[in-house]
């Protein structure tokens, strides 16, 4: 494994974020961001120490897995990439030379430098740490607020859209996966009481990059979890209010019953994708949390009622993308 990849994995809990630059025979150039995790046979991230000790021979340790599925392959899809250079005769000529050079004369494991091509460079032109949606939590009545919570951390676990602007406005071009540690020993935990329904937020560092050399464009990409700002203040963002979806399990085919004193929790990579997870420099990016056990919703019910209800938006609660509360 290349040392630069091993270093990136160590900083991001086994994940590496990459930009794929695809150049068509007609010169059209597109960018798509992808995330890959280096995992062992049981799907757990291979430790940085194990990768370091293995040196170049990391193949026996594990394999690459992607968010698209365990297969790890990526299909370049027009709905998922952003075009940064339109096709033209001149661009096609350059592309043909670059493709030939890349095929014939790779320069080594750490890079491919076409002799007649160009080298893409990038500079950070702005950065800011802002609240970003990491999940949601819903409750009805009968909650034991001392033991009902939404937990995020102690490493991040979110996929965040990447934005590309080559002069015609922002487009989503794939995503990055952020999984760095917070430096805190405990998970970020938001205690929840009765009749709650909000999206939960935490601070992430977003950066605006300017690219130049082969193609010129701007890219908004999330860099790391910062916890600055730290968490949700209920009611601070009216758009975050989603409690109107609760207290209606009686009309939902996917409800489940629980009883006084019981607890139930779930962590999953199947929680919902929020179309608007953050907004920065005019780019509105989506987010999705939970590819590991670092995102958890946890309920405990008191003895105020004889039965309690949860329900899924699109399946039973073990498999649903969203979990609502309350019979209604």
């Amino acid at each position: 494994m290349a040392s630069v990849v091993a270093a990136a994995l160590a900083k991001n809990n086994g994940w590496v974020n990459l930009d794929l630059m695809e150049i068509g025979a007609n010169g059209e150039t597109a960018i798509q961001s992808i995330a890959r995790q280096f995992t062992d046979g049981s799907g757990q991230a291979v430790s940085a120490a194990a990768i370091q000790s293995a040196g170049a021979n990391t193949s026996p340790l594990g394999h690459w897995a992607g968010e698209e599925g365990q297969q790890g392959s990526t299909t370049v899809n027009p709905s998922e990439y952003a075009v940064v250079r339109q096709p033209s005769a001149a661009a096609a000529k350059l592309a043909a030379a670059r493709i030939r050079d890349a095929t014939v004369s790779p320069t080594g494991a750490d890079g491919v430098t076409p002799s007649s091509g160009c080298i893409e460079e990038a500079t950070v032109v702005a950065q800011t740490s802002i609240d970003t949606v990491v999940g949601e939590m819903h409750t009805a009545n009968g909650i034991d607020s001392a033991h009902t919570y939404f937990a995020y951390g102690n490493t991040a676990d979110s996929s965040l859209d990447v934005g590309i602007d080559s002069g015609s406005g922002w487009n989503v071009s794939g995503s990055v996966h952020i999984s760095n540690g917070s430096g805190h020993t405990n998970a970020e935990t938001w205690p929840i009481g009765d009749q709650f329904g909000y999206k939960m937020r935490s601070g992430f560092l977003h950066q605006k990059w300017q690219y130049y050399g082969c193609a010129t464009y701007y890219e908004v990409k999330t860099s790391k979890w910062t916890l600055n700002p730290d968490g949700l203040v209920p009611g601070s963002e009216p758009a975050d209010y989603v409690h109107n979806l609760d207290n209606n399990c009686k009309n939902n085919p996917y409800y489940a019953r629980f009883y006084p004193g019981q607890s139930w929790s779930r962590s999953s990579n199947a929680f919902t994708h929020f179309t608007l997870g953050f907004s920065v420099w005019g780019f509105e990016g989506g987010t999705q949390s939970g590819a590991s056990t670092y995102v958890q919703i946890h309920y405990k019910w008191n003895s105020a009622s004889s039965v309690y209800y949860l329900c899924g938006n699109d399946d039973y609660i073990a498999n649903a993308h969203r979990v609502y509360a309350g019979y209604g």
Partner: protein
Amino acid sequence: VLLAALVVAAAAAATTFFLVRPGNPGHGSLVGFEGTMGFGLPLKHVGDRVSVSGPYLVKNNGSQPLVLDRVVPVDAQSGIVLRGDYVLYRPDHLGSWPGYRVPQNGHPLHGATVAPHTRVEIVLGVEVTKRGRHSWQGVRVFYRQGGQTYSHDDHLGVEVCAPPPKNCPTPFD
């Protein structure tokens, strides 16, 4: 537009990246749920039982039918015992329920057939056999398909507490 084969990784540092397709030999087609699902279940007395599901749904993603054989707890402590199990071909709304009995529409898990591209609900009967807090971390489902025997693990964790403490957490708390 035909996009050609030049792939340049232009992240923080330029690097090539080879997409590897991992092998997945020897696995059958039973799938459960992603991530973890945990239950914390207070019980009044040693010997009390509770029905646990979620609902816990397992699906046959293959084109051949499969036959369930048995389910066993994974990493179980002493003091918690799986006393019984059954399947429902039409999932009910059982998260967890005090007491355990097999309903009229319940079928023995051993020998239950799961048709291709269908799913069934598994319900577990759990008993606390001594005072205190006792848990398991997951369950392993054994099944047969096409002449082969397979197993599938799900992180369905159960913790039982007897007598009931102020808080009976899940194994994943």
